[in-house]
C-alpha cells in the first residue's frame, strides 16, 4: 500500500576513511552496519541515539554528503552514488546542523537566505519571492536587515532553516539542530519543524538524543553501534524504558514517573509521552 519511499536506504555499510586506513579491528569501527530504512514522503521521523551511535552518519547518507561503502541509497529514485545527481539530490533533501554559526555565510539575514538561490543563478525576481516566503514561513521577516551575529541561537537556526526552505526541498534533515540551544528555543525549533511538516507537507527527519523531541514524531528509530536497534511509533518504542536507558539515552523524568506509576498499578496510557499528556492522564 505504500507509495514509493522518498528515501530508500538499502543494506548500507559505511566506515570512515581514516579508520579504514588505521586497519584496526574492522568490526568495531563500522559507523553503519547493514542498515536498511525507508522514509515515506510526508513522514516525520525521529532518529534517536547516543553520541557515536551512527545517527548523524546515517543522516548524511540521506543527501549524499556520504556515500555508502556497500549497499545503496535512493533519494526520490536518484542513486546517491552517482555524482552527477548530487545537486538534484541536495535540492530535494536539505540539511541543518548542530552549530548555527557554521552554516551562515552572508553578512545580512536576507542575503543569507538568498545565498543558495543566487549561486544557482536564478532570476532576481524569483529569488526575492522565494526569500520572502522562506523568511515568513520561519518567522524571521522582521530580522531581515540584521547581521547574523546579532541573532540569538534560536533565530540563527530559523535562518538556517529558511536558507534550506528557499530551495523548495521535499525533505529537511535537522541533525541535532537543537542541542546547542536553550530549552525554550529548543522547543520553538522543534515546534517549527512540526509546523513545516503540517503546513507544507515536508518530510522531516529529526536527529536527536532527546526523548522529549522524538516523542513528538510519527515514527522513531533508535540507533546503537551503527545499527537500527528499535523502531516504531513513539508509544511503542518508549514502552521499553529499561532498554532505552541501556542505550545511553536519558529518560525524561515525567516519562519515568508515568512508567513507575503504571508499574504500581495506576493506569496511564502509553500514548501519553508529553508533559501535558501525562498530566492529563494522571489527573483523570
Amino acid at each position, binding site marked *: 500500500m505504500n507509495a514509493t519511499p522518498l528515501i530508500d536506504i538499502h543494506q548500507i555499510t559505511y566506515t570512515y576513511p581514516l579508520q579504514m586506513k588505521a586497519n584496526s579491528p574492522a568490526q568495531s569501527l563500522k559507523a553503519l552496519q547493514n542498515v536498511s530504512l525507508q522514509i515515506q514522503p510526508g513522514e516525520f521521523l525521529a532518529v534517536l541515539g*547516543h*553520541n*557515536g551511535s551512527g545517527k548523524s552518519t546515517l543522516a548524511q547518507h540521506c543527501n549524499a554528503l556520504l556515500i555508502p561503502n556497500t549497499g545503496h541509497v535512493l533519494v526520490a529514485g536518484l542513486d546517491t552514488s552517482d555524482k552527477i545527481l548530487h545537486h538534484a539530490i541536495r535540492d530535494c533533501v536539505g540539511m541543518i546542523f*548542530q552549530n548555527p554559526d557554521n552554516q551562515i555565510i552572508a553578512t545580512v539575514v536576507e542575503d543569507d537566505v538568498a545565498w543558495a538561490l543566487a549561486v544557482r543563478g536564478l532570476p532576481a525576481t524569483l529569488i526575492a519571492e522565494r526569500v520572502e516566503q522562506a523568511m515568513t514561513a520561519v518567522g524571521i521577516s522582521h530580522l531581515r536587515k540584521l547581521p547574523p551575529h546579532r541573532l*540569538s*541561537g534560536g533565530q540563527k537556526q530559523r535562518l538556517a532553516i529558511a536558507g534550506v526552505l528557499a530551495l523548495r526541498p521535499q525533505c529537511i534533515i535537522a541533525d541535532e539542530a537543537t*542541542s*546547542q540551544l*536553550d*530549552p*525554550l528555543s529548543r*522547543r520553538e525549533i522543534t515546534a517549527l519543524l512540526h509546523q513545516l511538516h503540517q503546513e507544507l507537507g515536508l518530510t522531516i527527519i529529526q536527529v536527536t*538524543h532527546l526523548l*522529549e523531541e522524538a516523542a513528538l514524531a510519527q515514527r522513531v528509530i533508535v540507533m546503537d553501534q551503527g545499527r537500527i536497534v528499535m523502531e516504531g511509533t513513539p508509544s511503542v518504542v518508549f514502552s521499553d524504558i529499561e532498554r532505552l536507558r541501556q542505550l*545511553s*539515552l*536519558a529518560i*525524561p*523524568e*515525567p516519562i*519515568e*514517573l508515568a512508567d*513507575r*506509576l503504571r508499574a*504500581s498499578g*495506576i493506569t496511564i496510557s502509553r500514548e501519553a509521552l508529553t*508533559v*501535558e499528556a*501525562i*498530566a*492529563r492522564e*494522571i*489527573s483523570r
Partner: protein
Amino acid sequence: MTYPIISVKNLYHTYQSGPLQKAALVDITMEIERGSCSAIIGVTGSGKSTLVQHFNGLLRPTSGALVVDGVNVKAKGGDLKTLRQRVGILFQFPESQLFGHTVYADVAFGPRRLNLSKSEVRTLVLHALDAVGLPPRQFAQRSPFELSGGQRRRVALAGILAMSPKILILDEPTTGLDADGRAEFYQYILHVQQKDAVTVILVSHDMSEVALLADQLFVLHNGHLVAQGSPRAIFTQDTMLHEWGLIEPPLSELLLLLRKQGLAIPERVFTLDEALSVLQELRTIQHERNNV
C-alpha cells in the same frame, strides 16, 4: 560561621563599544559560600558570562566592590595573577582548545608555568587525570584527538584542575554531551567539589542539570539579579521563570500542571521519588473515597 569565598556588592559592568554603551550588569549584590556548588542561570545575553568573567579578573567591574577569595578586584590594579591561579574557568566546548600532542602534555601546560619542579608538575597532572576518570597509565600518552568528545572535555577539565584552583567555573559544561557523557561529567564535578573542597560555579541553561548539582541558584535577567535560592525554592513555586525566558525542569513543570488541574500536591515535592509517593497516596485516598 563561614565567610563567603566570593562577595559582590553593587557591581555594575558597562560595555563600551564606540559611542554605544550597554549596561551588561546592573547593581549585582550576591555572596557565594566557600565549598558550595552554585549555578548562574538566565537566557543568552542575560549577563551570566559577563558576571563569571569578573570572578577571575578577565573583566573588571565598572563600579562596585568584588572580593574573590581575599583578592580585591577593582576597576584598576589588584593581584589578578594570584586570582587567576585560584580561579579556573572551563569555557564552552573546551575540547576545541586542546592542542597538546599527548594528553599529558596538554594537562601539564598550565602547571609547567608555575615554576615547579618536574616531579611536582607530574604529581599535579597525574592527580588531575585521576580526578576526571582518565587513568594516566591508559590515557597520558595518547593524543587527545583520538578520544571521544566526553573524554576530550574531561582532558580540558583536568588541565584546569592541575592548577589546583580553589574556585572552578564551568560555562555550559555538558552542552553537546549525551546522557552517559553528562552523567560521568557530573560525577567528576561533584567529586572535585566534595573531595577537594573546590567551590564550583556552574553557568547553565539546562535546568535539570542545575536542579541536580547546585545548592544555590542565581537567576539573571537583562543584567539584573532577579532571584536567588535553592533549586527547590526556585522551581517549586510558580515564579516568573517564564518571563525570564526560562523553563523549570520537566518534572517541576508536570507538577505545576497537575496542581493547576486541581491535584493537591504540596509545594515541597521536588524529586521523582517524592512525586511518585505523593501521587500513589492521592490515588489510594481516591480509591478509599470511591469505596465508601
